[in-house]
């Protein structure tokens, strides 16, 4: 038995390494200061797909990512680890999408891919931590979902068995294919890049990237069609522009505020024995501790 798997992966700013230069003086986010990375839980999702491919030969993995042109990097990263192909969904009309407009666009692209047994995505993307896109894509496609997967245990006779990690425990559930699975960060880490695949795919490019590439190896793409990464626009996936991007987003940002904390009057201490002894004495005397 072989499976057709779609993995949803997003390129995100690395909010875990937000440094001091992450905010500009005017209070807006300095995106340039944040490296763009493969959303961590989407790597866990990819690993679950790769394990299914190991277990069920003939299985294919297709990555789908929506983002600006440079998000093609996500597809290459997937190919380097053993995925078979990918699509970049990119169009100005997708900009400003909230999770609902994002899920709509992604679900339309999945309809374009047509054949699939399983859609695997990360639980949540670290830029917003919403965890909404997986379940919303499932709803839009009329599929059920199994969220917070830690381990896909087996796929047999059209059924899938999954261990889920919940806030206060674990659950083992069984569902019928096709469906959407969202994978938790507690699932195994993704395997590293495979040198052979890196060699094979390092020149894989989208049409836009090719336009910027050296004429020298443009003919490479004709002799090696697997190096062509498909780029899709709103029109390519038959999406309704009104339902995409900002106009397709029911939620609006009313206001963004810089947080200025009500600064308290505080006491600054040196880390000397005396200063700390005095502080501790005070806390014991006023019954904060002890």
């Amino acid at each position: 038995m072989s499976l057709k798997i779609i993995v949803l992966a997003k390129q995100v700013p690395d909010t875990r390494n937000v440094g001091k230069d992450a905010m500009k003086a005017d209070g807006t986010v300095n995106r340039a200061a944040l490296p763009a990375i493969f959303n961590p839980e989407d790597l866990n999702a990819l690993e679950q797909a790769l394990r299914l491919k190991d277990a069920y030969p003939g299985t294919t993995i297709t990555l789908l990512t929506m983002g600006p042109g440079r998000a093609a990097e996500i597809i290459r990263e997937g190919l380097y680890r053993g995925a078979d192909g990918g699509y970049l969904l990119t169009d100005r009309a997708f900009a400003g999408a909230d999770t609902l407009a994002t899920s709509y666009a992604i679900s339309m692209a999945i309809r374009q891919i047509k054949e699939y047994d399983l859609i695997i995505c990360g639980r949540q993307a670290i830029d917003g931590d919403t965890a909404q896109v997986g379940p919303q894509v499932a709803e839009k496609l009329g599929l059920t979902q199994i969220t917070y997967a830690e381990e896909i245990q087996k796929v047999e006779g059209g059924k899938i068995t999954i261990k889920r990690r919940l806030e206060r425990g674990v659950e083992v559930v069984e569902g019928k294919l096709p469906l959407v699975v969202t994978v938790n960060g507690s699932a195994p880490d993704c395997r590293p890049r495979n040198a052979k695949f890196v060699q094979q795919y390092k020149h894989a490019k989208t049409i836009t990237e090719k336009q910027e590439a050296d004429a020298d190896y443009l003919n490479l793409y004709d002799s090696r069609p697997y190096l062509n990464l498909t780029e899709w626009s709103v029109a390519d996936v038959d999406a309704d522009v009104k339902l995409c991007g900002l106009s397709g987003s029911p939620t609006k940002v009313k206001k963004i505020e810089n947080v200025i904390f009500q600064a308290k009057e505080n006491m600054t201490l040196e880390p000397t024995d005396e200063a700390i002894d005095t502080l501790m004495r005070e806390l014991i005397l006023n019954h904060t501790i002890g």
Partner: protein
Amino acid sequence: MNNLFVYCEIEDGQVADVSLELLTKGRGLANTLGCKLEAVAAGHNLEGIGAQVFPYGVDALHLFDDARLAPYTSLPHTSVLVKLFEEEKPQIALMGATSIGRDLGPRVSSALGSGLTADCTSLEIGPHEEKKENKVYENLLYQIRPAFGGNIVATIINPECRPQMATVREGVMKKEIVSADYKGEVIRHEVNKYVSDTDFVVAVIDRQMEKSKTNIKGSPIIVAGGYGVGSKENFQLLHDLAATIGGEVGASRAAVDAGYSEHERQIGQTGVTVRPKLYIACGISGQIQHIAGMQESSIIISVNNDPNAPINTIADYVITGTVEEVLPKMIKYYKKNTK
């Protein structure tokens, strides 16, 4: 019609704390809006639910009692809410930002085409003016949450779509009853009218729920560590101090991500919210997502080698030094001066 709905999570016949907290908040918002507060409970053996929720000021409780609705699975609970909301047209729907709420909320919002804001830290009612279209909206739900990057807080609204949906984490809102004998109405629904057989496509084969190992939410003293603690070994210092003065250990997300501490202990927007008597922040810079979860602590001590760490602005005592030098001194003094 157009009331405020709260989806109640139930485990072993008990309504989850987060749901009671949302009922408390919901009651306040409903008062501002002049509408009713309605609760939804879907599960099995729900006889005791009314007595648990009515004191929070619930005007109507919608019961969906069926053996197939417990334990929770996505599709049947979605069908219940989607159909109920189509009938009742709530203006606002709230649920916990829990394993269940974050599975259910997005699905319901997608089916109804209404917006959903995850992990709100504050909910308010207010107007909105759309200048371009010269439109004024009254009584919108302001869904307030820290956003991307750290130093900003965003107010999200859904001007056109209903219900306005939001999830909130456990502990963010306060839980407070209105009156022990508040009277509401129980509405029992026929489950088969809401769910179809094809909704039962996921079977729960095994389920093991555990009581949480830590009690940071209830602890009067919290010693919390951040990335600045530097290692898992150094985190032991925090455990020693907490054990000495009788507290629990908490952590920032950066410390959890680095593997210094367990996820259960994460404090902040995407962790637990705490209001202890004493909060000792060790090697924590104090990004808004962290502060969102601890700013209501009575006394805050910051131990940080950077005198300009943002957390210092909300601290009562700032010790400018390293965790490695300061904590052992605290432990030593306490041990010497108490029995």
